[in-house]
């Protein structure tokens, strides 16, 4: 397949209809600040591949989750007191005395988990359908930036209720920064605002916890912008080639996204109302006590795979001691995602046409879940070697499997176009120009 930029037939993003202001006010605004036009072009006329499945609805779901977290967070901030003496009790006052405070807090608390659940599904979708491949490298990397910001936001948010896990989680995580040579201890003290987790730490974490979601929102705008430049991928992995390949965003994607969103919210609501503390840890209902270490310090579930990788390095590697090694491995587990577009040597996007990668994809998913489970276990006995094997495989998937697979795998025959894939043959599409000449010659030939 030729590079998209040099493909003369790649007439993507041909919009369905155009914004025509009908009222005088509409025309007046359009000539000065065409914001309604932007919204119309982005969410009404914007063309989406006609064959998107439900895994493609998670981008929209994530947008709603971000809005939901920011809104509930703003209301929580009206009642929260960032003080080591009052933080725990102010959260309890929200739960007991603020009107519907329990609801707002449980939404926010479980919202973090469901935000991560949705983002993991969204990323797995990207991995499966090769959404990171050219020309969507920047789109993917912006997504990784969002993930990093989300992790920082969630970590700092978990510290705010000032329970035992808040305090000790903050202590353990910031403690890792002291592993860096020379600058480590200074870096840790700079992060904490002191020698230990205390009032200064809580104040700055609160400030940053309020700031970072807006930075996420900013990167989300870039992410969506990049998406609207390249267009979406689709389950065939074949680029949009003609207008017949697409449907206008509204009503098609709108109604499908809305349905998926409401189903997602049914599950979300089930946890908010019936299992609000299922994903949390009971120790965080004990006020923080700097003199009493909990038996197990366990992060929230969405950090567990990364926590397992952190603990996997129990040996020194040359000048790098095990502590620094663990920290580097944990950061590397995210950083490696930035290089994914170049580590995957296959030109075929969709895993549907990659029989070998399909197997490795599912092994990767199972391994990631297994890593998460290992992260919840104490770092002792059989768990340590299992964590090491699992961590090795996590990196091997990106650094060994993906580069080699693209070279040795023979992909299955791919359809000429989305229209052909949907309708069975190009002819059935009503004679439209669904298969531009020379678009994908011999698609079964491995890329």
């Amino acid at each position, binding site marked *: 397949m030729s590079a998209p930029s040099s493909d003369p037939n790649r007439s993507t993003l041909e919009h369905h209809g155009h914004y025509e202001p009908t009222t005088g006010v509409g025309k007046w605004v359009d000539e000065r600040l065409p914001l309604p036009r932007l919204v119309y072009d982005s969410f009404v006329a914007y063309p989406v591949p006609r064959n998107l499945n439900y895994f493609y609805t998670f981008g929209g779901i994530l947008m709603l989750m971000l809005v939901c977290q920011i809104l509930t967070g703003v209301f929580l901030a009206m009642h929260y007191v960032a003080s080591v003496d009052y933080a725990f009790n102010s959260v309890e006052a929200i739960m007991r005395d603020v009107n519907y405070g329990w609801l707002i807090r*449980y939404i926010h608390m479980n919202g973090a988990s469901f935000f991560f659940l949705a983002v993991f599904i969204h990323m797995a979708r990207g991995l499966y359908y090769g959404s990171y491949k050219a020309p969507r490298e920047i789109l993917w990397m912006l997504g990784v930036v969002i993930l990093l910001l989300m992790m920082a936001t969630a970590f700092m948010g978990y510290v705010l209720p000032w329970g035992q896990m808040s305090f000790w989680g903050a202590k353990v995580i910031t403690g890792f920064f002291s592993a860096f040579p020379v600058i480590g201890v200074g870096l840790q003290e700079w992060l904490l605002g002191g020698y230990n987790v205390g009032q200064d730490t809580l104040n700055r974490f609160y400030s940053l916890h309020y700031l970072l979601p807006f930075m996420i929102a900013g990167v989300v705008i870039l992410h969506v912008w990049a998406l609207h430049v390249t267009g979406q991928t689709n389950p065939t992995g074949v680029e949009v080639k003609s207008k017949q390949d697409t449907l206008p965003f509204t009503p098609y994607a709108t109604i499908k996204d809305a349905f998926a969103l*409401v189903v997602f919210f049914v599950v979300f609501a089930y946890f908010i*109302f019936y*299992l609000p503390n299922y994903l949390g840890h009971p*120790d965080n209902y004990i006020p923080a006590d700097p003199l009493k270490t909990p038996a197990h310090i366990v992060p929230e579930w969405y950090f567990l795979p990364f926590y397992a990788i952190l603990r996997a390095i129990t040996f020194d590697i040359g000048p790098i001691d095990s502590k620094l090694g663990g920290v580097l491995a944990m950061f590397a587990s995210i950083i490696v995602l930035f290089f994914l577009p170049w580590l995957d040597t296959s030109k075929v996007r969709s895993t549907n046409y990659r029989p070998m990668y399909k197997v490795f994809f599912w092994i990767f998913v199972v391994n990631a879940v297994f890593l998460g489970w290992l992260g919840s276990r104490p770092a002792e006995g059989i768990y340590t070697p299992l964590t090491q094997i699992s961590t090795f495989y996590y990196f091997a998937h990106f650094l060994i499997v993906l580069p080699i697979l693209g070279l040795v795998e023979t992909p299955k025959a791919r359809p000429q176009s989305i229209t052909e894939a*949907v309708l069975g043959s190009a002819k059935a599409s009503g004679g439209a120009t669904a298969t531009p000449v020379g678009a994908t010659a011999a698609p079964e030939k491995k890329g």
Partner: protein
Amino acid sequence: MMKKIAIALVGLMAFGGVTQVAQAAGDYPIKKPRKVDWSFSGPLGTYDKAQLQRGFQVYKEVCAACHSMNLVAFRNFKDLGYSDAQIEALASEYEVAAAPNSEGEVLMRPAQATDYWPNPYANAQEAAYINNGAVPPDFSKLAMARAVERGFPNFVFDIFTQYSASGPDYIYSLLTGYGQEPKPEYADIDPALSYNPYFIAGPALAMAQPLYDDFVEYTDGSPMTVDQYAQDVTAFMKWAAEPTLPQRKAMGFVVIIFLSIFAVLLYMAKRKVFANVKH
């Protein structure tokens, strides 16, 4: 009053020290908690007010001698079915520190409905000193701050059964778990501690058996047994930890029905929109 003092003394003598038993984590508790069919379980669960009142009575007459409940105010007892007059009468039985008077003295005054439950100790240091170093935990969140790990695959099934009573089940099991002969391997425990196979952090804990049959005089005909006391006071503790639970479950029921119907309508709309479109 004599009973109250006697109970307090029993408690004081029994507190042998901090309950830190250096054992590999994961070995405890020796026995998994026993499950109780709580009124607040399930999608329509709610508190049983009569039970909460009995549990409050047990707390007031037994537990409150050592355990504070800092986050619960007298006004909150309205949830238990008491009238404003009853709450004011109850509050006036207790004394709290008044604001400094014009000469700067801090005198005691009768508590009001807006006051919080008075702490049995002046501060944590006093609590630790009297109890041989172990501060009796505050009751406000205890039912949500304790849980025995459910383990795989139970934690998966719990999603579907809505099991979220591991805190109350643990407390109930602990309260009814005294008086058993320690297994031989635990025979050499500190005599100041009490063996309890349900304790989460070791074979024995500092708190001596707090409840005995006929210890608290019930007036509603409920059985005056350790088992009943334990259930009642645990339900009360769950209420203290999460007084908004009934609103949460009632609203959840409506929200989920609403969202489900909405989802069906959206699905039908989606089918209609895509009816003539291959996708």
